[in-house]
Structure formats: structure tokens, C-alpha cells
């Protein structure tokens, strides 16, 4: 069985489940710089590498807050996935979390093939 990888902070957790091809974000992520977001970016890239030819889901349903540096990091990842164009990217959001209703759709504008489901 493939091992689940986790990044944990004071108020957040990002988890890659390679079996389910899912990266889940939980809590509140408001890191200071793109350098501090680097471990999360690397986890996303590793998840991408292990899901080539398949489907990768980014699950934000339990993420209460993400600051602009975080939105920038996720957007950068979507742009890099678009350039490689080697998998299907799905984004899961929570309609009870207002920023997700308002801003997750921007990821689909970066790459129209991204499938967004706000439930």
C-alpha cells in the first residue's frame, strides 16, 4: 500500500493520499512567503507525478481560509499542470465556505479542463 504523506502546521494539514490520488487541505493556511509554501508545492508536484495519465483531486472542503500567497501557490500548480497536460485535475469545494464559492472558479479559468465541484 502507498504511504500517505502529510504536511502539518499549527492550524493546518495538507495530506496526499496516493491510493486515492487526492490532496486534501484542512484548517487555515496563511503562510508568509512563497518559500514557506514550498513544501506544499512539492507535495502537489509529487502527487501530480504519481497520478500521470489518471485523475488527481484537490480537496478544499475542510479548508476555512487560504491567504493570497496560498491562492497564488495553488494557481501556480494549476498552470504547471496545464502546461504538462498529462492528467485530469478535479477541484472539490464546500459551498458553505464563502471564499471557495467566490474564488475556486478562478482555477478553471486558468485551465478550462479543470473540473470544479462545489458541494
Amino acid at each position, binding site marked *: 500500500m502507498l504511504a500517505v504523506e502529510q504536511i502539518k502546521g*499549527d492550524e493546518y494539514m495538507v495530506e496526499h493520499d496516493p491510493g486515492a490520488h487526492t490532496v486534501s487541505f484542512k484548517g*487555515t493556511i*496563511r*503562510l*508568509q*512567503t*512563497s518559500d514557506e509554501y514550498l513544501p506544499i508545492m512539492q507535495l502537489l508536484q509529487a502527487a501530480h507525478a504519481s497520478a500521470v495519465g489518471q485523475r488527481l483531486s484537490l480537496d478544499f472542503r475542510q479548508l476555512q*481560509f487560504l*491567504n*493570497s500567497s496560498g*491562492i*497564488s501557490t495553488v*494557481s*501556480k500548480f494549476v*498552470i*504547471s499542470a496545464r502546461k504538462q497536460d498529462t492528467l485530469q485535475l478535479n477541484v472539490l469545494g464546500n459551498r*458553505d*465556505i*464563502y*471564499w471557495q464559492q*467566490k*474564488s475556486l472558479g*478562478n482555477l478553471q*479559468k*486558468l485551465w478550462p479542463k479543470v473540473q470544479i465541484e462545489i458541494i
Partner: protein
Amino acid sequence: MIDLQQYGAWQDMAGVTARSYQRMTLNTDDLAQFWRRCSLSSDFWSRYSALFVPVTGPPSQLSRAALESVLAYLLNELFENCAKFGGGPLGSVCYQAWIQADSMTFQLTNQIELVQQAPFIHFIRELLENDPDELYFRRLEENAEVNAKGSGLGYLTLIKDYGIRFGFRFSAISDQSVAVEVQAHVSMKEL
């Protein structure tokens, strides 16, 4: 003569009758030392301010939870900017808010070094004179290539996704230091 320059939706709040007025002063260094102080301050004031609206109002109005979420993003961005870009000998951050019947105005005042003023004004002009949607995606594509500090994505998200209007005012303090006031006008109406 006082050297004042203002941009965007700057409003003189001196004569405004507010339902509630809030004010808090912090040190820039404190915010920069423990980054979580930005988040703590913004969460406190967003919850405090959102209590002025009903849990659920008419459909045309933001619910309390939605408003709290907007304010938490807005105030966190503004406190983070003060911690990131504040400079000069004074090193203070002043938060003020005016709560009115159908809108809220938040104002953060801090200081920057004189050399930071021209690039900041250039940045503001670009923000105010371009289509926010087009600029947002252009910036993201540019950022994918280079890591830029202060890409303006926070402001652009707030303008584009939440309809927040910004005003900016600069006033010289000394020949090295400039006070910057950033105003954010938040409508309680659902976009």
C-alpha cells in the same frame, strides 16, 4: 504645506456618523516577529464586525458567515501588507473601522520609507486603471515564471471576487518616511 496624495475611492471619514467606530494601534515589528499576529488580529476584528449583521438577512444581503469570511480575507491581507512592507522609524500600524447601515469602511495606516513610495504608487495606478479580471490572470501567469513579492493578488481578489473598493492616501512625515493609509469599502450587498 502638507504633501498629500490620494488615489482611488479615498473618502474623508472625519464627518461620517458611524454606527460603531473601532480603533487599535499595533507595532509593525510585533506583526513581523510573529506572523500569526496578522491572522489573530484579522480574525478578531472580522468576527467582531460581522456581529453587526444578522445571521441570515434578505437574500440580497451578505449573511453573517459570508461577511466574516470576506472580512477575514480582507483584514488578513491588509495586516500582512503592513507587516511585509512597513518601514521607517515610527513602525506603527493603526487599524480603524467605521460600521454603517449598509457598508463598512476599514482603514489601515502604517509607514513606509520614502524610496518605497514611487513603486507603490505605480502599483496602485496599475491596480486601479486596469480591468481587475484581466490583470488578475495576467499576474498569475507572470508569477508562474517568477516569484514576485507583492504581486497584488490579494487586492485583485478582493476587488474582483468581493467587489471591495480601495482608496489610498500618502502623506509625508519626514524626508525619509511616508504615512500610507489604505481604505477598504465593503458593501453588505451580495454580489
